[in-house]
C-alpha cells in the first residue's frame, strides 16, 4: 500500500469532485438551509419534551443540546462523504461501470468510498461545531488536553461506525440495485441518535447499544464532552468501531467475489 500514491489520488478525487459539484451552486445553498432547519426542528422537538420536565433520562436540556451538536457534525460528515458515494455506486451498478473501478490498480473500497465529496456537508459540519462551542460555554466545560483527545478519539470511532454502516448498505447495491429503502431504514434508526440514550426504555436502550449502535455514535462522545464518561465505555467504543470497520471490509470483498462470479 503506497501511502503517498493514495494521498495523491485522494487529492485528485477532491479536486475533480469539488469542481463538478460547484457547477451546481444553488444546491449547496438549499442543502445548508435544510441543515439549519433540521437542527431548528430537532431543538424545537427537544424543547417540547423538556416543556414541563427538567430532566429527561438524567440529562438537562443544555446537556441534550450537546448530543444535537454531535449528531449535526456526524450528519454533516455523512452528507459530505457517505451519501454522495453511495449514489455513485448505485450508478455504477445500474450502468455497468463498476468494472472500470475494479480494473484500476487501486483499492476498490478506497475508490468507491472517497471518490465524491459534497461540499454542502461541510457547512453542516461547521454548524455542528458552532453549536458545540455554544454548549461548551453554557455548560461551562473545561477544555483540558485529556478532554480534547478523548473527544477526538470517541468522535473518530463514531465516524468509523457510521462509515461502516453506510458502506455496508453501499455494498448491498451489488445485490439490490435500489437501496433507497435500506438507506431510509438506516436514517430512521440513526435519527434516534439525536436523543439521549437514557430517555428510552430499558429494552430499547439495549437494542440501541447492541444491534444498532446509536449509543456509541452520539451518546458516548457526548458523555465524554460532559466529563461523565467512564474509561470502559470509551474502550468499548474503540473495540466496536474496529469490529465494524473490519466487518465492512470483509463484506465488501465477499460482495466483489459474488459480483465476479455472478455477473455477465
Amino acid at each position: 500500500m503506497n501511502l503517498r500514491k493514495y494521498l495523491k489520488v485522494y487529492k485528485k478525487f477532491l479536486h475533480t469532485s469539488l469542481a463538478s459539484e460547484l457547477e451546481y451552486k444553488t444546491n449547496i445553498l438549499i442543502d445548508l438551509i435544510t441543515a439549519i432547519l433540521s437542527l431548528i426542528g430537532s431543538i424545537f422537538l427537544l424543547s417540547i419534551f423538556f416543556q414541563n420536565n427538567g430532566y429527561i433520562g438524567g440529562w438537562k436540556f443544555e446537556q441534550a443540546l450537546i448530543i444535537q451538536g454531535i449528531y449535526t457534525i456526524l450528519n454533516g460528515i455523512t452528507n459530505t462523504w457517505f451519501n454522495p458515494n453511495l449514489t455513485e455506486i448505485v450508478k455504477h451498478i445500474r450502468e455497468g461501470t463498476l468494472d472500470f473501478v475494479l480494473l484500476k490498480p487501486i483499492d476498490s473500497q478506497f475508490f468507491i468510498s472517497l471518490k465524491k465529496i459534497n461540499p454542502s456537508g461541510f457547512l453542516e459540519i461547521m454548524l455542528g461545531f458552532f453549536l458545540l462551542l455554544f454548549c461548551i460555554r453554557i455548560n461551562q466545560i473545561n477544555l483540558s488536553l485529556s478532554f480534547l483527545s478523548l473527544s477526538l478519539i470517541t468522535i473518530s470511532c463514531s465516524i468509523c461506525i457510521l462509515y461502516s454502516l453506510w458502506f455496508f448498505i453501499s455494498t448491498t447495491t451489488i445485490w439490490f440495485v435500489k437501496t433507497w429503502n435500506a438507506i431510509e431504514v438506516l436514517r430512521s434508526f440513526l435519527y434516534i441518535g439525536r436523543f439521549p440514550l437514557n430517555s428510552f426504555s430499558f429494552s430499547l436502550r439495549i437494542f440501541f447499544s447492541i444491534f444498532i449502535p446509536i449509543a456509541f455514535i452520539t451518546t458516548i462522545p457526548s458523555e465524554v464532552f460532559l466529563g461523565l464518561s467512564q474509561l470502559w465505555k470509551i474502550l468499548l467504543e474503540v473495540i466496536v468501531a474496529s469490529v465494524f470497520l473490519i466487518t465492512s471490509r470483509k463484506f465488501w470483498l465477499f460482495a466483489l467475489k459474488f459480483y465476479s462470479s455472478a455477473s455477465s
Partner: protein
Amino acid sequence: MVQNIIDVRNLSKSFDISSKEPGLKATIKHFFRRQTKSLKVIKDISFEIKEGEIVGFLGANGAGKTTILKMLCGLIYPSEGSILVSGYLPFRRKENFLKNITLIMGQKQQLIWDLPPIESFYLNASIYDLDKFEAKKRIKKLSEMLEIDEELFIPVRKLSLGQRMKSELLAALIHEPNILFLDEPTLGLDINAQRNLRKFLQKYNKETNATICLTSHYMKDITSLCKRVICVHEGAISYDGKLDLLLKKLSPVKEILIVCRSEEDANKLENSGFTVKNKIKNEITIKIENNSITSSLKTILNNFDIEDLFINEPPIDEVIGKVLIKKDYDI
C-alpha cells in the same frame, strides 16, 4: 519465439439464473419461492494468443463473447479451467497485471460527466502511478493519434458522441497498456466514428505492438482489423483461425431482389438457371455467390428488362450458423 501472452485451457463458466414465468399468478408464486437454474454459458474452450496479435471474437448476441473477455480481464471467475494473461491469473487482479491491461466497453463511460476529459486523464494518471510530466507526454501523443485537441477542455456532457468516444479511448490508454480488451466498441457509433476507431486501433497496434482482443457482432469490425478470428456460438468455439480462410470457405452469397417490368420477365428470369429464393408476381429474389456477382448482374441487366434492384447481405447470424453446421474447420 514469440510468447503466448494469453493462454486459455478448458475454460467453462456457469451462472445461476432465477427463472420466472410471466403473469400475475406466477409473480405471486415467485414472490414466495424463487427458483434458480444453472446455465452453462461457456463450454470448455481453449485458445492461445501471441503478443501483438489482433484477435476478433465473433458471434451472435448472447453467444458468450463478453463473458470470455471479462474472464480474460479478471472481472468474472471461471467455473472450470485455467486462464493465464501475461503470466498472471486475471481474477487475482494484481496491481502489475492491472497496469498492463485496459478494458473499453461500447456505450459505457468512465469519464467524469461534468468535467473536461483532461481532468479525468490526470485522475487516471495518478491512479496508474504516472507522474505529471509523463502523463502530459502521453496525452499529447494519443491526442495527436486520435485527432482531438480543444475538445479535451470542454465538459464531457457537451461533447458529441464521436468526441466522447475518442476521449474515452485516451483515458483508457493513458497508461500504455500492452493488452487491450474491447467489448463491442463500435456499438452506437456512426459510420465515420466506426471507421476512425478501426483506423486508430490499427495504428496503435502497429506502433506499440499491443495485443488487441475485441468482441463484436459487426462483421466490418472484424474484417477490417483482425487477421485472426474466433467464432463463438452458444458458449463454444466453432472456428479459430485466419479470417480470410473462413471467408473463402463460407463463400457467402448475396440475395438480390429484382423488380421486373412485367410478370413475364420474372418468369423468364426464374427459369434461367439462377437459385431462386422466392418469387411474387414481378418481384423475384435470387441468390448469387459473391465471386460471381458482377458477371451474373451483367447477364441479368443485359438480357432482362429490370425496373429496380436491391442487394442484401444475409444476416450475420446465418453466416455464423453456417460455420456451426459445417463443423470441419480447424486451424
